[in-house]
């Protein structure tokens, strides 16, 4: 028997000790974020309109704006964010292991993620559904004609489960081409490794906008699933959960009440008591959340209300060109509906 190699044993012990120390979940995310002075958001690796670095490397997009809104509420400064990029596969591990404080990343709320993966969800910032993108020259009009096709899917998503169910239910076969990121998927689709790219319809619109000839591609009429996308946090921090919930609600309520980034200062002297409560002129809602009075004011002033965020990033005047649809306010026939600030 040979004696153990002492230096190796020592370093192994150190590694083990380090593992033992980290991972002990800290008590309050809010305190951590405040003391770090920056909010770490788990976002995607890049989906135009939703979360992408622009030419100068600044992160932009719908999900990023919600991340900024959260930073504005918590830190009073919407620029104090750090984007923690994640694939469909890594996002929950990143969040649960404490690499990020909140997840804003095209993430569908599902039972197994809520209960099994132990996440906490806080409402829906985008009502979506899964669709199919194909090249027009294939001459396909319906998803029912896709028997035998090669389909690009991102792994670790609801997409791959819905797809399996849909083809199974319709007695069709397909070749699954599993990829990690949106960019890889786009590349494989462009090169013809797959006939079809499938993901959330919003994601398809985003991808289509990046083609030189977007009109050569069509999104098939079938929407095969419900994809309510929303923010997530770790379980067990109720205060932090409340904050994320009400950041989202604040943007929706602001739109409903007509409070925008340009008129928010005038609205401080509004006659509507709910606006006054929202903006912290009356009541103590900010303090109750563990934030300051102007938390919602800061969101609206620096990022805007739900409608502004939508139109700026993915609305009909952007290359993504999405209609409000289900994401219109409930007062306009959509599903966006915030509980009252009372």
């Amino acid at each position: 028997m040979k004696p153990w190699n002492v230096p190796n044993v020592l370093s192994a012990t150190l590694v083990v000790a380090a593992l033992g120390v980290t991972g002990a979940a800290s008590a309050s995310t809010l305190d951590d974020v405040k003391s770090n002075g920056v909010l770490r958001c788990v976002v995607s690796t890049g989906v135009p309109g939703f979360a992408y670095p622009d030419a100068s490397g600044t992160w932009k997009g719908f999900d990023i704006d919600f991340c900024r809104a959260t930073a504005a509420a918590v830190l009073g400064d919407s620029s104090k964010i750090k984007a923690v990029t994640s694939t469909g596969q890594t996002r929950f591990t990143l969040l649960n292991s404490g690499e990020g404080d909140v997840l804003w990343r095209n993430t569908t709320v599902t039972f197994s993620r809520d209960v099994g993966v132990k996440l906490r969800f806080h409402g829906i910032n985008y009502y979506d559904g899964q669709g199919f993108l194909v090249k027009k020259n294939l001459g396909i009009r319906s998803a029912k004609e896709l028997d035998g096709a090669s389909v690009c899917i991102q792994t670790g998503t609801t997409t791959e489960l819905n797809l399996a169910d849909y083809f199974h239910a319709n007695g069709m076969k397909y070749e699954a081409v599993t990829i990690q990121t949106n960019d890889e998927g786009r590349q494989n689709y462009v090169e013809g490794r797959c006939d079809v790219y499938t993901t959330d319809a919003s994601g398809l619109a985003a991808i289509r906008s990046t083609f030189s000839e977007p009109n050569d591609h069509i999104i098939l009429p079938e929407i095969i699933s419900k994809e309510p996308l929303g923010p997530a946090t770790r379980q067990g921090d109720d205060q932090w959960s409340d904050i994320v919930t009400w950041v989202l609600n604040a943007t929706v309520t602001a739109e409903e009440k007509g409070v925008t980034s340009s008129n928010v200062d005038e609205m401080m002297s509004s006659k509507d008591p709910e606006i006054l409560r929202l903006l912290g002129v009356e009541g103590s809602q900010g303090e109750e959340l563990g934030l300051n009075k102007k938390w919602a004011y800061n969101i609206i002033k620096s990022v805007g209300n739900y409608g502004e965020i939508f139109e700026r990033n993915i609305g009909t005047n952007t290359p993504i060109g999405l209609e409000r649809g289900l994401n219109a306010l409930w007062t306009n026939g959509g599903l966006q509906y915030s509980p009252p600030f009372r």
Partner: protein
Amino acid sequence: MAAISETDTGTSNPLLRLWRDKETRSVIIQIVTMVVILTAVVLLLRNVVINLEAVGKTFSFDFFFYPAGYDITFSPIIEYSSRDTHLRAAVVGLLNTFLIAICGIVLSTIMGFTMGILRLSSNWLVNRLVYCFLEFTRNIPVLLHILFIHGLVVTLLPVPKNALVFTDSFFLTNRGFFVPLPVWGPTAWIVALGLAAAIVFVFFFARWAKKVQDETGKIYPVFLISLGAIIGVTGLAFLAAGMPLTWSYPELKGFNFKGGLALKPEFIALWLALSYYTSCFIAEIVRAGILAISHGQTEAAYALGLRPNRTLQLVIIPQALRVIVPPLTSQYLNVTKNSSLAIAIGYMDIVATVGGITLMQTGKEMETMIVVLLVYLSISLVISAFMNWYNKRMALVER
């Protein structure tokens, strides 16, 4: 000797004396180390339990028996559908890992030995060319090679509609290489029987020939006779069975080719990249192994009148293998472990299935990662055990 002189330094402190004794000292160090390691393991486990409890997760493998819900298109060995269990998905992943590891080991060995021998060639050009290839390849991370080959296949080759066709039955596309697949008829067992009989014959014949050679020095052309027997007997059986073989040809139907055998781009990229990358290390091992046998051996063999290829076969290779096999083992382990990079291009191995999709869809990080770790550990231990056994057989038998 050192131990004795150390204990002789004459100290009254018994503990110090124990410490000065080489044997006892090593025992003490081992005990202390074991205690440290065990404590660390216990602490780690405790931490895992506490953290799992903190997030409210249970530890159980039940999920393996629930429907997986996801599809794995590349499952050449067993049938699989999304309605099967996570366990079956794991088996598919495991088989795919085996497949790539075995194919990778075979191809990298062939390429490695070839290049290793070419590196010793006296032809300057051949020698340099191989040298440049080796240096270039092994200094680039294998992940890049995998992505590179995959990129080449997917971007350079045409889509199925415009496939490159060879003799109407081989198709090259960016969705894979499609080749005819032999389909055996119901009487194929006769052929298998013929082949088995031939192999049994060859086995006994080779033993007999060796005995004759040992006793009388008479040499039979064992290889040629064996080859003849295998081809002849199997061929006759094939004819006798009424040629029970048809070919399934790939054919473009709808979006993709149907029929035949499909080598997917993901498999090809992983297989080629792993193989040529690893073969570079094998080549150097082989070269070193051959160079390690002093030239005097060759000269001695020549002096005894052995022809060059017999010299290589009987003198050089058996000795070189002793030098080659131990480091070769670690290259085989590398192929197996590196095959886990499959996930980068979507080849569905054990990491992509259990450690990827199953982990993600069930949220069972701990359980799935334990399974994946155990799988790699077992594969590696089996390879090591086999290579150790082989090495023992090859090792110098001193008489």
